[in-house]
């Protein structure tokens, strides 16, 4: 039974799949996001991906050749080699060199992610609770909870699911664009993790400890994420919604929040 046809089908199938423009239904790839860091992550991801594809084509290509041409049913007789020092050295050293080349951009991006040289302009403390998020704007006296608002009827399949099913909250986190924001994470009970792919931020929220991540967001808009660390029964029901406004709109919003006393 020929292995060639199925393998060929899989290979070309994958090639077709990856060349498709992403539609809303079949998302194939990581988001580029709206920060320099998120774009860097996407870039790194694509670089490593293509290196792996290239290595795969070479290795699987040789295998495919053997599967077709070195079959006993084709009359192939076995050769007798079972070692070759130079080849073995080559295929140890060359992968090692490829890895070094991959490590360089990765390390550079990692250093950028940990940059503290520029001061931040806003610090937001994020507390993970079972099962919602709490946001506090440090120094502004503003604090509120952010809970999922998807109706139970939709979750229990008694009603049609709305487009933002499981990714909508009562109070969104509002932040200004183009300012360096420090996101500090902690938790009230168990470990949670705050993840918004478009911002390139995922940080564990650990009870008794504080972690930080920073972002400078290029574009206003609404960006969604959710908890990324198993935290109990409703782990899948703690979404995150971030609304990025222009600096002026953010100031207006902030003033409006602080006008009545907010818990």
């Amino acid at each position, binding site marked *: 039974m020929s292995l060639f046809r199925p393998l060929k089908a899989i290979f070309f199938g994958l090639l077709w799949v990856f060349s498709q423009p992403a539609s809303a239904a079949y998302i194939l790839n990581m988001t580029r996001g709206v920060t320099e860091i998120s774009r860097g992550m996407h870039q790194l991801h694509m670089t490593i991906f293509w290196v792996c594809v290239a290595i795969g084509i070479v290795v699987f290509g040789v295998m495919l050749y053997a599967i077709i041409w070195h079959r006993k049913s084709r009359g192939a007789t076995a050769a007798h080699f079972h070692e070759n020092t130079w080849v073995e050295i080559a295929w140890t050293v060359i992968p090692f060199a490829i890895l070094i080349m991959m490590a360089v951009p990765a390390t550079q991006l990692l250093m950028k992610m940990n940059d503290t040289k*520029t*001061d931040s302009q806003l*610090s937001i403390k994020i507390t993970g609770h079972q099962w919602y998020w709490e946001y506090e704007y440090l120094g502004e006296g503003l604090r509120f909870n952010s809970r999922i608002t998807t109706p139970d009827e939709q979750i229990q399949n008694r009603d049609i699911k709305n487009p933002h099913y499981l990714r909508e909250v009562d109070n969104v986190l509002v932040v200004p664009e183009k300012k360096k924001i420090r996101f500090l994470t902690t938790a*009230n009970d168990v470990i949670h993790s705050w993840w918004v792919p478009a911002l390139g931020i995922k940080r564990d929220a650990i009870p*008794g*400890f504080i972690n930080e991540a920073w972002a400078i967001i290029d574009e206003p808009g609404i960006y969604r994420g959710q908890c990324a660390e198993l935290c109990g029964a409703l782990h899948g029901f703690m979404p995150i919604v971030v609304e990025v406004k222009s600096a002026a709109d953010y100031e207006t919003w902030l003033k409006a929040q602080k006008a009545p006393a907010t818990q």
Partner: protein
Amino acid sequence: MRIPQKKLIFLLCGATVVMFGFSFALVPLYTVFCKVTGLNGKVDIDGPISLSRYRSEKPDTTLRRVTVEFDTNRNQQINCEFTPNHTALQVVPGELTHTSYHIKNLSPKKMTVQAIPSISPGIVAKHFQKLECFCFSQQTLEPGQALDLPLRFWLETELPNDVHRLTLSYTLFDVTNTKENDT
């Protein structure tokens, strides 16, 4: 290479016991590692740095200022108020800074609490020295009692130059009913 059976079994069982002990040894090893490297932003709560060590600290002669943000958390939302009296201060590395926290027991029962500090960015932790901190001991409050808890600290001048801002976060835990309670 053949090893006498009994000796081999003995060695392998010994290795098993050693690895079990090793896993427990990782606990103090981890603590030491955290203290030395400031990993995880863990800050010492064993006790105050001595005043003489502070006096030997040379103050920063540059005009460098670091913003220290003060943050508070109540684990499991225990029934008390816990807020910093300063939300942020501009601090000179090498100089002693004094601030305080407000805590009030809102419950109808006596409450014993332990404050656990954490610092971000983590690398700052080993440069953050506390002369006096309410986190060194547990605090017991009668129902309705309010306290003003002091914190005196300084940032070592060895603090890396590219750090402009750090956040000191305290989480308050209720230890009234636990074995940690030393009253």
